[in-house]
């Protein structure tokens, strides 16, 4: 089985989707001959034609709005927003239309679109290129929000997103685009987009993370293992709707939970997870639920970026803190 990076896995999934379903269409800024600024669509316009892999003008609002219209009229648009920081102009269409069209028309018109965007920090990018806005999107009823953390999951989740009958926001942790290689079979098998993934099993503490934070959490778990502390590591993968069951079961077992995300603390998605546990698993909790997150400030320009991003050291500190709680 070929080893590949996340960006290659994404390209493979996009290519397969274009091949298997003539209604799939890709559009966005620079997705054509340039192949996307991260090369997610490299070679696709050459292979499937410029009418199926289309460069758009610089118009995020229209990209999202066109995706809604095209989806409602029978296409399966996979639109790209070049960076999550430029997604805001698309929010109106996502919140006021994409997420509601099925409901508004009692199922008559639907909106099977995917909006992909490179997401998160960690690559020393310029201002506005490192945003983590998943919590805002996860608040919107009717959307799905999916974030892969490995090449294989990127492949399977993206295929699922494209085939899903409802609108999916698919955030790709750009820091992982080329950081990991793993075997990915181009077998067209989708992964479920309503399930979190238990990446490692343990007994003492539950770590919940997604995207690039999985790498940090995993490293923390390795180090904890050396200290004799074993962790469940849950990759949320699908953030909306949230797979509350998997998280609850784990915490009912371990009694301790540390949640990790890059986005700022306040009203981040970690809050929802902690709140859910506080409501439903209170009696299982042996220690307070800790969140290790980006700070409640704008991510600093890249010279200080590393100090903003949660890392294994901060996770370890939090885990020790919950382990020591008595």
């Amino acid at each position: 089985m070929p080893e590949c990076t996340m960006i290659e896995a994404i390209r493979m999934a996009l290519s397969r989707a274009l091949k298997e379903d003539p209604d799939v269409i890709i559009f966005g800024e620079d997705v054509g001959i340039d192949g996307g600024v991260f090369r997610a669509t490299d070679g696709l316009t050459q292979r499937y034609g410029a009418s199926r892999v289309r460069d758009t003008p610089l118009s995020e609002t229209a990209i999202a709005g066109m995706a809604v219209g095209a989806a409602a009229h029978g296409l399966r648009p996979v639109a790209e927003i070049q960076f999550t920081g430029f997604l805001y102009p698309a929010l109106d269409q996502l919140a006021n239309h994409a997420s509601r069209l099925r409901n508004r028309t009692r199922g008559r018109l639907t909106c099977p679109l995917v909006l992909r965007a490179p997401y998160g920090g960690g690559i020393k990018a310029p201002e506005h290129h490192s945003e983590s806005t998943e919590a805002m999107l996860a608040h919107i009823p009717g959307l799905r929000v999916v974030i892969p953390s490995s090449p294989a999951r990127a492949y399977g989740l993206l295929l699922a997103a494209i085939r899903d009958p409802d609108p999916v926001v698919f955030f790709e942790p750009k820091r992982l685009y080329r950081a990991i290689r793993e075997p990915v079979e181009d077998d067209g098998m989708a992964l479920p987009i309503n399930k979190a993934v238990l990446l490692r099993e343990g007994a003492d503490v539950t770590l919940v993370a997604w995207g690039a934070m999985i790498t940090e959490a995993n490293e923390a778990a390795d180090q904890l293992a050396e200290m004799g502390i074993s962790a469940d590591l849950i990759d949320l993968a699908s953030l909306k709707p949230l797979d509350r069951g998997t998280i609850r079961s784990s915490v009912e077992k371990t009694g301790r939970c540390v949640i990790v995300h890059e986005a700022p603390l306040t009203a981040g998605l970690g809050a929802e997870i902690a709140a859910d546990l506080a409501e439903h698993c209170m009696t299982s909790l042996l220690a307070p639920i800790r969140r290790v997150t980006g700070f409640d400030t704008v991510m600093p320009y890249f010279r200080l970026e590393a100090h903003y991003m949660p890392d294994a050291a901060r996770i370890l500190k939090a885990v020790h803190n919950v382990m020591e709680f008595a």
Partner: protein
Amino acid sequence: MPIQADHELSGVTVFLDPAGLPVLDLPRFARHRETLVALYSAMVRTRTFDAKAISLQRTGRLGTYASSLGQEAVAVGIASAMSDEDVLLPSFREHGAQLWRGVSLEEMFLFWGGDERGNDFAVARQDFPVCIPVASQFPHAAGVALAMVQKGEPGVAVAVGGDGATSKGDFYEALNMVGIWTLPAVFVIANNQWAISVPRVDQTRARALADKAVAAGIPGEQVDGNDVIAVREAIERALVRARSGKGGTLIECLTYRLGDHTTADDASRYRADEEVSSHWSEEPLVRLRAYLVAHHGWAKKDEEALLHGCRDQIEKAAEAYLATPPQPVRSMFEYLYADPTQDQAAQAGELGDA
């Protein structure tokens, strides 16, 4: 050496003047009595619906309602030019277009009565529901048109918005997309001179809203929006053009909002009665009726039969609407996703047996 908007406005297309006198040779479709009667009847039906909707709202049996009084020709003109394979993307004031397309009176009442079932049109199933966020329907139309192109369908996406809508970025971005991809889309501006309390002159300094087409490199034109013949003729031309692969058109229909913005508005706060009354002389029904009387023997009894028929139909639809029980409360969870989620199941539980 500034570029100014120095091109000549090519003038406003009009066939019937306010008195119903033809100022140009009528287009072919307008030579048939049947067609003209259908257009007139649709406008009358729209206005009758409007009156009923307002009275239902005033008596607490309908929600906030946006009257189309005075703008019937825009809506009917648009829809009457369209084919079944076309898709209508209306704003909230195109009742006449929706009715012509086959949306039922009862569905219309349901929608304005706060019931999603009003959007589950039994016919015109590809048409979009009313769009409340101003101008956000224009990108949808570009997307529908794109889908039509990709699928090789012969249809055209027809989106309608107001003068106010032309100030929004999404209108412009969508117009530009239509231009760049030569999409089969027609954008219609129902310029009724007001966006709630903001008059047309305070909306933009562009000489004509149709001029905005220049920014997207597509043709734009102005028509007398109170002349249903002019509206239909212009839309037909734009549809033919779009269907033949030549791309989109922006059509500005000059009309006037004779009523309040909605039933929640009181237009007397911001515009003079005289202004409104002066526009009553230009409204669309009078002129077509005058023409029908003069040229097609439209008689008092025809008029009465029509009015009576409309009222009857509309009363029946209103009764059916009023008799429709609300949806089950749980319906609020049933159409959000194709498959209900775990969260929703849990939350629906909280509703108890409601």
